[in-house]
Each structure stands twice: as C-alpha cells, then as structure tokens.
C-alpha cells in the first residue's frame, strides 16, 4: 500500500482541488444541457423524417446515448492536464522530477483525479435533469432512460472505470506531447476533432455506414463513449460487451506503455532554462 501512497494522494488532492470550482461545473453543466437539448431535437427530427425501422439503434436509445455523452463529457481527453501545461511553461516541472515517484504514474494519477472530479458532479446534475426531471415534467420521450437490465448496468459500471483509465492514458500521452513541444496548443487542437468524431460524441458510431462498423469499433476512441453507452442500453451484450471491455483495456495498456516509454525519452533530454 505504501508504494501506491503518493499516487492515491495525488489523485485525491487533484480531485478535491477541482471540486472547489463550483461555478465552472455549473457553467459546464449548462452548456452541456443546451447542446444535449439541441442534439435530442435534431435526432428526433431525423428519426421521424427517415426510415428509422432500418436504424441499428432506436430514437430512445440515441437520446439516452446523447444525455450520457453530455453528462460524462468531462471524462473525455479533450487535451492535456492544464496543470502540466502550466508546469512545463513555468519550469515548475522541475519539481515533478524531484519526487521519488514514477513520473508517468504521477501525472497519470493527477489526470485521473482531475477528470473524475470534473465529471462526477456534472454527470449527477445531468442525470437529475434528463433522467428524473424531464420524465416528471412529461417529456419522457426525450429523457435519459434507465439501463437495459441489472447485468448491463454492472458491465456499464466496469466499462466506465475503463473509460477513466483509457482517458487518463490519452490525457497523459497529450501531457508528454506538451512536455516535448513545450506548448499545449498543438496537442490540444489535434485532440479535439479526433475525439469528437471517433469517440461517437458527434454522432453515435452505430449510425455510421455498415462498412465502417468494424474499424470504428476497434479504434481506441470508441472505448471512451460508444462502447460504454451501447453496453448501458443493451446494444452490446454478452460476448460483444466483453469484446468492448477487452478493447478498452487493450488500448489503455497500449497508451500507457507508449506514453511511459516516450516520457522517459523526453525527460532524459529535458532542459530547464532560466533561474
């Protein structure tokens, strides 16, 4: 347990620190509600206009997917940890090298704390709004529905843990890019479009053409949004669900291994100027 102590402490400290920013959480939540509502209306119009009997997922599932994606938006790796970017810019990154910890794991734990602290209150507010308030107000058709069944709910919980693991690994890879390039702009700008399309955030991956489905399923970003939410409403069950969880774990390990090796190289040729 003593070996893990620094990392758990970093996770907890970053988590507590982020919980301080209530105004940011509320503002983020408001934006996510707004976008969620627009998307829900667009999907409704789209499903009513087209031949939705051919759709692989129903309108209700698509709406639930949308609220989930909006609620857990902060769990996506939109860029590097701003603390790391600031430390790289000011040279405070020196202090990270002075800690008797594995540098990669140290940043990883902080990234995980940073993301979960931002996601938990927003997801809870989103569920209260879209999952409870909307049906009570008579908008049941536009609401966040409960999971398919208890087994799927359990698999979903497991999958969400893997989302945190995978997303932290991608954030940390971005951190390494930031440390290598000394700026957070390039890496963060690159991450946005990739993430928004390939995670299924813009459009559920199931609504893409059939010929692309296999490729979309196995690529790393699917494990951030598409796989857990399809497990939630029962579109991915049994072997398919386990395959999804396996892919999430595989990509996490791949990003951790790659990021760890790259970080060692970047840190070996670190230059800290001034002072």
């Amino acid at each position, binding site marked *: 347990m003593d070996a893990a102590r620094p990392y758990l402490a970093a996770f907890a400290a970053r988590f507590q620190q982020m919980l301080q920013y209530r105004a940011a959480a509320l503002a983020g939540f408001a934006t996510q509600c707004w976008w969620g509502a627009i998307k829900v209306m667009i999907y409704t119009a789209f499903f009513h206009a087209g031949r939705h009997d051919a759709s692989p997922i129903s309108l209700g599932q698509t709406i639930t997917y949308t609220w989930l994606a909006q609620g857990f938006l902060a769990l996506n790796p939109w860029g590097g940890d701003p603390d790391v970017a600031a430390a790289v810019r000011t040279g405070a990154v020196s202090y990270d090298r002075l800690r*008797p910890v594995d540098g990669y794991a140290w940043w990883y734990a902080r990234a995980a704390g940073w993301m979960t602290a931002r996601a938990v209150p927003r997801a809870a507010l989103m569920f209260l709004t879209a999952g409870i308030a909307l049906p009570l107000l008579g908008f049941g058709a536009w609401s966040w529905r409960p999971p398919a069944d208890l087994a799927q709910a359990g698999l979903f919980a497991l999958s969400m843990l893997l989302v945190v693991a995978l997303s932290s690994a991608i954030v940390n890879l971005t951190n390494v890019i930031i440390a290598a390039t000394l700026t957070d702009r390039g890496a963060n700008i690159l991450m946005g479009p990739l993430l928004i399309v390939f995670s299924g955030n813009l459009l559920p991956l199931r609504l893409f053409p059939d010929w692309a489905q296999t490729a979309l399923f196995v690529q790393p970003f699917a494990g951030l949004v598409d796989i857990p939410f399809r497990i939630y409403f029962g579109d991915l069950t049994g072997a398919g669900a386990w395959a999804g969880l396996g892919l999430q774990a595989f990509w996490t390990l791949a990003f951790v291994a790659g990021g760890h090796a790259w970080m060692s190289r970047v840190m070996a040729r670190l*230059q800290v100027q001034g002072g």
Partner: protein
Amino acid sequence: MPQILVEELSKSYRVAERDSGVLGAVTGLFHRRWRTIEALKGVSFALEEGELLGFIGPNGAGKSTTIKILSGILEPSGGTCTVDGLTPWKDRVKHVGHVGVVFGQRTQLWWDLPVIEGFDLLRDIYRVPPDRYARTRDEMVALLKLDRLLDQPVRQLSLGQRMRCEIAAAMLHEPRLLFLDEPTIGLDATSKLAVREFVARLNRERGVTVILTTHDMHDIEALAERVIVIGNGTILADQSFEALRAGVFAERRLYVDFAGEAPEIEIPGVTVLARDGRSLELAFDPKIVTAPKLIGEIAAAHAVDDIHVMEPAIEEVIARFYDLHGAGEA
C-alpha cells in the same frame, strides 16, 4: 568519502536560432540553424557531509544547471557525479527521496490548496510515517512561524510567507542534503534574515549539508563557509569565504578631493576608477600599498581638501571579479 563528488561535469544544449523579421520566421520554417550552448564545461568539486557551500556567479554562469544535475532533474552531457554513492540521474527515484530542493523562482506547493494540504500531500509523496511527519511539521511550523499561514491557500500568501512555506515543504521528509537555488530572491530584509537564520540553524544544529546559490552577497557572507565562484561554465574560485574576501575582496577605495584640478596618479597597486573635476575615486590593494602610505604620498605631492577610505560594496567587487575573468553575462 565525500558526500558529493563531482568530476568533469559538462552540459550542453542546442538552441534554434533564426533571423529577425517575417523573412527570418519563414526561412526558419524550412531551415533551422542550431547553436550549441555549453552551460557547463568540466566542473569538479567534492563536498563533505555537513558543509554549507555557496555558489555564486553571474546570470547564465551554470549555477542552476549544476544544482539541477546534482538534484536529479537534468542529465549532464558528460562527467560523473555521485551523491551519497548514487548517480542522481540514473538512480533518480532513490536519490530524490533524500534531498530537499527550493527554487526561489518556482513554487512546489499547489497554488489552490491550503498550505497544510500541500504539506500533507508531500508527506504521502515521500511516504513519511505519520508520527515522524507530525513531529517534523510541527518543528518547521514553529521555527519558521507558519502557524497562522497553514490554512491559507498558497496563492494568497505574500512572497516572503510563501518562501518560508516552501522551505518548510522541502524539509518535511528530513533530507540530509538541501539545495537552495536563490532562496532569498525578491524577499524583503526581514524575510531574508528569517531565511538565513533558519538555514544556518539547519546546518549547525542538524548537520544538514546545504548548497546555496544566490546573487545576494550578504547571504553568502552570513551563511557560507566555502564559496565556489562559477562563470562561463567553469569554476573560477573554490575557497573559504575568508580566503575569498582576503584575496578578491581585499581591495579598498580612496576618495580624494583636491584643492585644484585632480592630477594624474601613477602609483603601483592603484587604479583610478572615476574622475570628476577636483575629485578622484581610487582603488588600491593594501598588500601592495597601505592606506597610510598612499595617503601620505598623495598629500605630499598635491594640495588635498578631503580624503577618506572605504571598503567597496561586496557586489561591486564581485562584478569586477566576473569581468576580470571574462565571466560577465554575454
């Protein structure tokens, strides 16, 4: 076996250069010119446990680079170095657990967290047993008078308050070796004195080895028994503070007001520093010509209104020492 043994340490790095202006920026996209900067060119020294070493030198001399290599942040380009038998950049994780570092220009405490939470975090990072942590923390709080600061977020502290917290933070895991890189920079007189007193006590009462860099010669005067002067990446002098003072700082100043126009003075060991109408400012080496002899010679040869002798400001002397060795910042 010395605690720190540094042999022929060197560090060079490349910087990209481009011509100024839009054209320069565009050509820079296609063709990078690199210039190699040698921050350290073969630095060697040894340090025994319990010593208090002052590192001085102009900006860009290599002081901080040396500290960053010794503390495990940077890898050198060449040379060897052992600290307590470990090579800092090879055994980084093991090494950094036993050293404390304070950079005067950076902060190690988390900006948005109260000081005490930053301390608690460091306890877990260094895996300090809770009872030992509580003891060390309470001692630091008492010595540095931090009790009223502990619940404040770091960003709300004044620089002097923050620096006291930073130094306490660096000591929570009871390191045997402390690196202080410009710890008094920007501090007011009271805070400087508090920092100096604390560092002196750590060294004297607990035997903590301290390596200190500074531009404030009063820090050196108050703390360091031994001084290394570094310039252009090489060691210019490595001696006791007293020897350095006797050698480099021996120079005296003589201010003379003449009755008429100030004359030319040509006496061995004397240089004219400034001339202003009837006044002269002279520098002289008392080992070559003593003050009474010099005053006698001048008074005998010229009509003098007033005369007084002063020790030059230590900053001024060190600046001349840098210039003399071609170590002033390029």
